[in-house]
């Protein structure tokens, strides 16, 4: 044994941590990684679980998967800097009880090396680690299709949600991108990237299956390559109906997701949510209001506490 080979003074240590933290937010990708980080590799994964615990007895699973191919330009990097705030936004105003957040990335299985990366459902800052490990492929073909269907296949068949199993409440899945899914799940790609055999399944059928356990939303940032593309919007609206949202300002991504969840949980209505944003000093209420207009459902509005009581959520963002 015998150690102490390295300097262990306080200042060197503090300095090193600072430098390590100041490294690129996509440190893993920027270090030249060309395969999925082991923590995010979906191959052979039985399921990603969102489980209740003593600390978080009423978990609300929220998955955010974004397109990391070339057409998205700098969008993934912006998302990466914004998304860590999501948990705080959700918990501060009680939009969702005990949120569990999973981050992942979607690419193109026909030509990418890393077409699917899926983190874990986390209720603390570990999800940020997953963000940092995402490989930005940056490739992608010019055919305006990405393998969203492969991602949706994983989410439909390889997640286990206590919220659904115990309480019949669906989780939330946000896909952020600017292209269309392929028309069907390709068994060869499933075998290659998930390591299992399956039958071909149309994207339409898959979405129906996925919507059993998740409310699925598609967020299209207008800053992205195909932002606002009519064909892309039409295709997704055909699959998800009104749950397709156009987002003018990417900086508002967290607010948009948080309010969407709040609306889905019935903890706020849109106006109250936008008021919350103004009150908290967010500059994005107009952007978010515009993006969420399609979700203005009217009708039942429950403002205030959820029926499960007033116990403090176990989430604390330190």
């Amino acid at each position, binding site marked *: *044994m*015998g*150690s*102490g*080979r*390295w*300097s*262990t*003074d*306080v*200042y*060197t*240590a*503090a300095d*090193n*941590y*600072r*430098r*390590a*933290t100041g*490294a690129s937010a996509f*440190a*893993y990708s920027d270090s030249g990684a060309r395969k999925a*980080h*082991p*923590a995010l590799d979906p191959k*052979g*994964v039985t399921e990603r679980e969102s489980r209740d*615990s003593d*600390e978080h007895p009423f978990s609300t699973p929220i998955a955010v998967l974004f397109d990391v191919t070339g057409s998205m330009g700098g969008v993934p990097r912006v998302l990466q800097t914004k998304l860590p705030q999501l948990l705080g936004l959700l918990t501060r105003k009680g939009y969702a009880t005990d949120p569990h957040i999973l981050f992942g990335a979607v690419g193109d299985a026909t030509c990418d090396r890393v077409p699917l990366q899926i983190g*874990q459902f986390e209720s*603390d*800052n*570990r999800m940020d*680690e997953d963000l*940092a*490990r995402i490989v930005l492929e940056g490739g992608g073909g010019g055919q305006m299709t990405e393998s969203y269907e492969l991602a949706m296949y994983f989410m439909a068949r390889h997640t286990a949600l206590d919220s659904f199993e115990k309480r019949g409440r669906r989780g939330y899945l946000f896909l952020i991108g600017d292209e269309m899914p392929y028309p069907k799940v390709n068994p060869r790609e499933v075998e290659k990237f998930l390591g299992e055999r399956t039958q071909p399944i149309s994207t339409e059928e898959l979405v129906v299956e996925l919507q059993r356990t998740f409310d699925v939303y598609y967020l299209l940032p207008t800053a992205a390559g195909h932002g606002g593309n009519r064909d892309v919007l039409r295709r997704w609206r055909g699959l998800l109906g009104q749950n397709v949202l156009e987002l003018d300002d990417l900086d508002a991504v967290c607010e948009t997701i948080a309010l969407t969840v709040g609306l889905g949980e019935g903890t706020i209505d849109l106006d109250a949510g936008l008021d919350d944003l103004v009150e908290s000093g967010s500059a994005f209420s107009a952007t978010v209001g515009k993006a969420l207009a399609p979700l203005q459902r009217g009708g039942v509005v429950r403002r205030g506490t959820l029926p499960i009581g007033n116990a403090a959520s176990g989430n604390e963002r*330190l």
Partner: protein
Amino acid sequence: MNDHVAVVDLGYGDAGKGTVVDALCAYSAKRAVLRFNGGAQAAHNVVTEDGRQHTFAQFGSGTLRGVPTHLTRYVVVDPLALAAEAAALGNPFELLTVDGDALLATPWHRAANQRRERARGGDRHGSCGMGVGETMAYAASHPGAPRVSDTLSRTRLRRRLAAVESDLGPAGVPLDDVVDAFRAFGRTVAIVGPTYGERLLREGPCVFEGAQGVLLDEWRGWHPHTTWSTTTFGNVSELCGSFTRIGVVRTYTTRHGAGPFVTEDATLDLPEGHNATGEWQGAFRVGHFDAVAHRYAVEVAGGVDGLAVTHLDVPERCPALRICESYTIDGRPWTRIVPGPPRDLGYQEALTARLHQARPGPLTRPDDWAAAIENLLSAPVEIESYGPGSADKKLLNRIP
């Protein structure tokens, strides 16, 4: 799942756990390496095929292969030493998770440890001077001892560190500077909850990497020349229901620092690559293969499923090297060190006194060292190591 492997050293440490863990990681994909005892005083050398060498202390020995490390609640975490080790490795913090419940070693623990060893004068225990034992001792009597999750809150961290400083005395560094450094640690490493380890174990085969050796175990070693750490499979059994137990031995016995060492022979020509005389530990001592002590280690560890024998290339280069199968004490043979009752330090202390009187019995030199050791320790040799790199290992295909 029964494909987890636990690696412990059946001697006084330095048998080659690091190189064995690295070889296991090279042999088949591992989800993570879990550390289950000790702290920054560990020093596990790994040399990869492409020539990278690192002495692992808190990062697991699979790091150079990209295998994540999880520091379980049994590890004493030293944020200052960790920063230095991380920097030496290129800051692979994405490969590290730390249980929030693990204890923190602080500069005050370290200073107290060094003062205590200095006060022992010529009667040193062989501590590494890193404050690991001091941290364990402090926690045993202070329920509010600082833990890893405390670094997430400045207020709580400062309160707890201030208490340590006031209890143990100054360490020549301002409290707030330590708070800053520890907070930076808390922001940089992924601090996880108590169920994270179980999740890793569900997700894929893991390796448990022990530190120190069974003969240094806090309850089973030669008291007081022991480490404040459970070096047997005890902690692993707490963390994991089922695993393969691998005991590591060298073809010769080594000891770093003070304490009984019956088969010590300073005339053996055994140059040591990575272990030098440490300021706090004292000299690196070498001797003949001590089958008596190793059999005792296997017994108190609760048995092993297989052995990893390292330095099999050495006997050829050192013709004087022998195996000691029994001791002699007062002219009579002593063939088995009988384990005492659990947690009986009086018994261990008496053993220490007796071992100081013991001399090696007849020494033998086998033709086939691996076979001889297999026979003496009554467990199959699963890994043979003929050099520092993983390419120098022979895995005999019976382990996961």
